[in-house]
């Protein structure tokens, strides 16, 4: 089982859209996929028409009494299940801080999920660089990092590198991809060129700024379902293919 965390400490960069659409693509390719919505806003849960409620709240992640498998719900997409979000996840940092093994709580949950028969777990992360982020780095095999080609967004990448550099044992791989790209803007083009020159973990695939992605909120479905032939749907398909081709899943290219 692979764990992909869609992570960026900055908000509004397209993490949830990427998590939902990658989850859909994975399910379409025959992977039994779990989308784990860790963001208390619960946008991924909302997109997939699942109630915004996690039985047991954050205690499900901190005590052994709660079986995480009982909290998983099916979605409208065959092969894609959801571990829903809950308002209480706002306090997950506090819960982790009070628990034993404060930086590896999520890894323990992942180990339990491993018994549920999933091929892939995609975590929709909250925009945060606190204790929950440390837990995510510890639990994930790959960090998929959406970046809007703008100065502030790129700056957060440096913070991520610093945070990963402090990890002593298990360090996830990273794949950075550009999100909400407007090719008409010089700034976007320049930032993309510069970042690609500096890093070798930048995906070739680019997610365009598209109204279909924004419409996911009204359609409550991945773009691959609501607009399967749109450029955005094709881009997410390409991103999934790139993840596979780079060997970040168990699927050979």
């Amino acid at each position, binding site marked *: 089982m692979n764990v992909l965390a869609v992570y960026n400490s900055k908000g509004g960069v397209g993490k949830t859209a990427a998590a939902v659409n990658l989850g859909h693509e994975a399910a379409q390719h*025959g992977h039994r996929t779990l989308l784990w919505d860790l963001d208390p806003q619960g946008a991924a849960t909302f997109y997939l028409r699942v109630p915004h409620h996690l039985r047991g709240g954050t205690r499900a992640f901190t005590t052994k009494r709660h079986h995480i498998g009982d909290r998983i719900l*099916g979605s409208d997409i*065959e092969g894609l299940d959801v571990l829903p979000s809950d308002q209480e996840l706002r306090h997950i940092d506090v819960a982790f801080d009070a628990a034993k093994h404060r930086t590896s709580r999520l890894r323990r949950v992942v180990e339990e999920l491993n018994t549920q028969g999933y091929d892939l777990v995609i975590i929709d992360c909250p925009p945060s660089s606190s204790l929950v982020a440390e837990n995510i780095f510890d639990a994930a095999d790959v960090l998929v990092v959406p970046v809007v080609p703008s100065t502030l967004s790129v700056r957060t990448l440096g913070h991520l590198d610093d945070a990963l550099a402090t990890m002593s044992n298990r360090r996830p791989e990273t794949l950075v991809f550009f999100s909400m790209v407007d090719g008409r803007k010089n700034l976007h083009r320049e930032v993309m060129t510069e970042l690609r020159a500096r890093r070798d973990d930048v995906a070739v695939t680019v997610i365009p700024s598209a109204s279909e992605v924004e419409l996911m909120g009204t359609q409550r479905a991945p773009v691959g379902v609501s607009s399967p032939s749109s450029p955005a749907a094709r881009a997410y398909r390409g991103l999934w293919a790139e993840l596979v081709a780079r060997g970040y899943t168990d699927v050979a290219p």
Partner: protein
Amino acid sequence: MLAPVAVILRPGTSLSELDEWLRTEAGCRASPPSRLTRTYLDTFDGALFRHGLVAEYELLEGRRWLRVRRIDDTSALVQAPVARSPVDQRVGPEVLGDGRLRAVLDGPCGGRALLAMVHTEGTQRRYRLADELDKAVVRVSVTAGSATRAALFGPADAGPADGQPAQPVAAGTGRRRRAGSGQDPSPSHVLDPVVTISPVRGHDQVFNQLLDLLTVRFGARPAADPFRRAAVTAGLTLGSNPSNRTVALEPDQPAIEAVRVILARTAQVLWALDPGLRADWDEGFLNDLHGAVRTAQTVVRIAGEMLARRDIAGLNADLAALLAVTSRVRDLNVVLGSLGHDPVLAALGPTVLAQREEAHRLLVTLLDGRQWHQVRGALANPPPGQDAGKHPASAWASAALIAALERSCRPGPGSLHALTTLGDLIAVLASLYPAGALHRLQQDLEPILWQLRQYCEGLMTAWTVTATGAGLVDAEPALLIALGGHAERARTGAQLAMTHLIEAITVLDGHRDRHTKRLAQPRARTRPP
């Protein structure tokens, strides 16, 4: 989490009645019916089925899926969309674009190609029961259609019946058709409609309610696995292995009768393998053909004392010629398999194809030829004065096995051949012995043969390389260098093979001493009335 459940309904239930009930009383929403095509695939000798697996290719709404699942378990172990139909061509695990499929198929298939066994065609209507958020809580699909057996997998005794002369078959225009040719002449068989109810995680209660309602209203009861159902309906004998040369013999039947039965079965196996050999489907056809020819040769040789020498001389010559060709083409395949990534080896391709053609021609000559019928005639009417055939089959088999053990224990280049023959004989004659009498010998023989094959493949390759190299003097220097490098590696492997051969002989020596007496006097089997 609950697994999907497939049920069939009370006989006489119409699909329109079910449709109306699902939409009105159960509150399901229906999608328009879709055309559903499924093809079940397996290796030619049913290796997947024997491992309890099913590979199914599905075409639904323009999407092509290949999935592998356990028999009687509707949820897939692994599934992946495929770009092209695997039905019209041989599909080896190596050509599948998905590492997970390869990982599941590699073991049971052992590199053998998947071939179409049964095709099903029909319609599928899908329903979903949704909650207040319009999210599906239960999915239902109703499938109806028919099944057709793929042409390759006809009855196991597709060859000429024993004692009947076969009709000549011109090369390339045989009466058997290629699997997946799209012109399958087999008739279609109507399948009972099946309702599959799939739970959505977290809504198990609704799933159970719907299943209960279906049971009460329509007398739903579990349906057999779709593959099993389609295969049985289409008249396919599941688990049958066309290469299986084992026959049922009686300890007290005359030895000549036992030889006749073994040769008849061998002929059936050879005929069953013929289409695969001709159409270049799978290496397995060739290897099994080679094994069958070798068994036939051994049986004819040890039956020599029961027949006049002139009766078997011609058949022996034909078998030797066929064995020589199948050995050569198999060894060439080993070279190609070992060095397949070297582009210059493409030069060997036409040689292999030519050898295959030759093997097919010799096979047809053998089975349709006068020599084979002469031996069959001699077995039916043994020449006067040949009394050996009247002895019980058990005595004859024991003598044959002990002789094979003796030959295996003589160190020398023929030991590998003798060991392989011994393995074949045990497999063919096993039914003459009480269960377990040969078990220990088989157990010891199996790892020895496996180890020897591993290393001797290298040795065979070295011989082939030498022979091929001699015939390719004018070929590209790069090819000769590639072959030469492989020959060097093979020679190193051969030294190890000899070590294993000596170990094998030591083990078999022990068997011979311990079991000679036991093998010579096998107990009569007790059979249930």
